């Protein structure tokens, strides 16, 4: 029950990118292919979950004055571990994400969750929080990748999916070419496209949230009227 609520929060109502408006640098920079998007999303999910668990586990022992410094040290530790493992085992991902893997250290989502959630909640809840927020982050990254790649070059699943080899974990998949890349709006694959796509996604999210808030207010009002009439 709790997990379902946290999942809904993480992916929709408290989405780290679209609602909390954190961690946007990487979102716009690396979403040029599905391989990057899924790779980055999963990396952040793993780092976020590990950091959440670590911070929650030591929350009673760390002095309050230096807690932010300790959070940063723990996060830097996990980021370096993931960075080294990616360089060794999935070097193609490490190369295409470049400097944005070490930059996960300053990704506001991780510090934000540590500060807002993990230092007051037990390890189990923090673990679930890490997974759900990470999932929300990955979902937004995947949506952005799909839009930018599909409309920008007519391709789906670049680097990850290959018609001949299935799912390629080494970045060599050529993706499914849905229409000739000459007809794509290649501006979407440029930095401009990153800004525009994220802007439109934000707008869509805000419109959806406002609509559901209006619905809830209208439903509450009709309930009030019925209560008064009764």
């Amino acid at each position, binding site marked *: 029950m709790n997990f379902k609520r946290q999942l809904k929060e993480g992916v929709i109502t408290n989405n780290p990118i679209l609602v909390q408006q954190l961690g946007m640098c990487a979102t716009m920079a690396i979403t040029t292919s599905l391989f990057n998007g899924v790779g980055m999303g999963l990396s952040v999910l793993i780092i976020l979950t590990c950091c959440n668990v670590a911070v929650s586990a030591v929350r009673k022992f760390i002095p309050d004055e*230096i807690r932010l410094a300790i959070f940063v*040290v723990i996060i*830097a*530790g996990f980021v*370096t571990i993931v960075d*080294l493992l990616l*360089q*060794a*085992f999935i070097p193609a991902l490490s190369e295409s994400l470049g400097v944005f893997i070490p930059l996960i250290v300053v990704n506001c989502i991780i510090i934000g969750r540590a500060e807002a959630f993990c230092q007051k909640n037990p390890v189990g809840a923090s673990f679930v929080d890490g997974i759900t927020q990470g999932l929300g982050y990955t979902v937004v990254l995947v949506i952005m990748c799909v839009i930018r790649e599909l409309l920008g*070059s007519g391709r789906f699943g670049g680097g990850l999916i290959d018609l001949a080899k299935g799912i390629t974990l080494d970045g060599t998949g050529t993706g499914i070419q849905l229409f000739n890349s000459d007809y794509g709006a290649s501006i979407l694959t440029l930095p401009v496209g990153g800004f525009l796509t994220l802007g439109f996604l934000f707008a869509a999210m805000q419109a959806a949230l406002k609509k559901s808030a209006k619905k809830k207010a209208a439903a509450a009002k009709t309930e009030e009227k019925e209560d008064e009439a009764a």
Partner: protein
Amino acid sequence: MNKILKLALVLFVICAIVAGILGAVDLITRDRIQAYQTNRTNRARAAVLPVKAAEGEEMYVDIPLDSLSIPATVTANGQDVEILSMARAADGSGHVVEVKFSGAQGNVVMIVGVSNELTCTGISITQHSETPGLGAVAASDTDKGARFRDSFIGVDGSVQLKDIDAMSGATITSRGVTAGTAAAIQFVEAMLNAK
């Protein structure tokens, strides 16, 4: 004062623990990363200047740039090109030069094969951030890209933009690759002359 010391000590201990864990992970991954880097360079070099060597034997012998008396930057076709590394083919068929020049959107790193007759045997772009669909075609596996790269085979150190099959809409990248190739050949010539 005591409190600050205690806080600093706690922070230091946590840093030390984290650093220790990182050291352990580094020990596990260091060799793998190193092997991948050498493999990648050798594969790019083999693409431009294939070398017949026995299994496990060194294919390319690195020549350290600071052991040479000539500067590691060449100005070719009006553009500054930096020489990153140089190696001699183990079977004596030529040299492979790694060059860096500025393209349309940042630096481009390229490996050029130079034969003993000071002509280009092939080029391979290893690092770039050029515009996808335009400059990036030079490095891609498409027909256009292959045609572009093949047009450099056989050119000498005086190659100009008009001598090769440039990419339309990607003049800056084409110009850069031309300058890089010319610079690589000129550098090998200068090195052989300096001996």
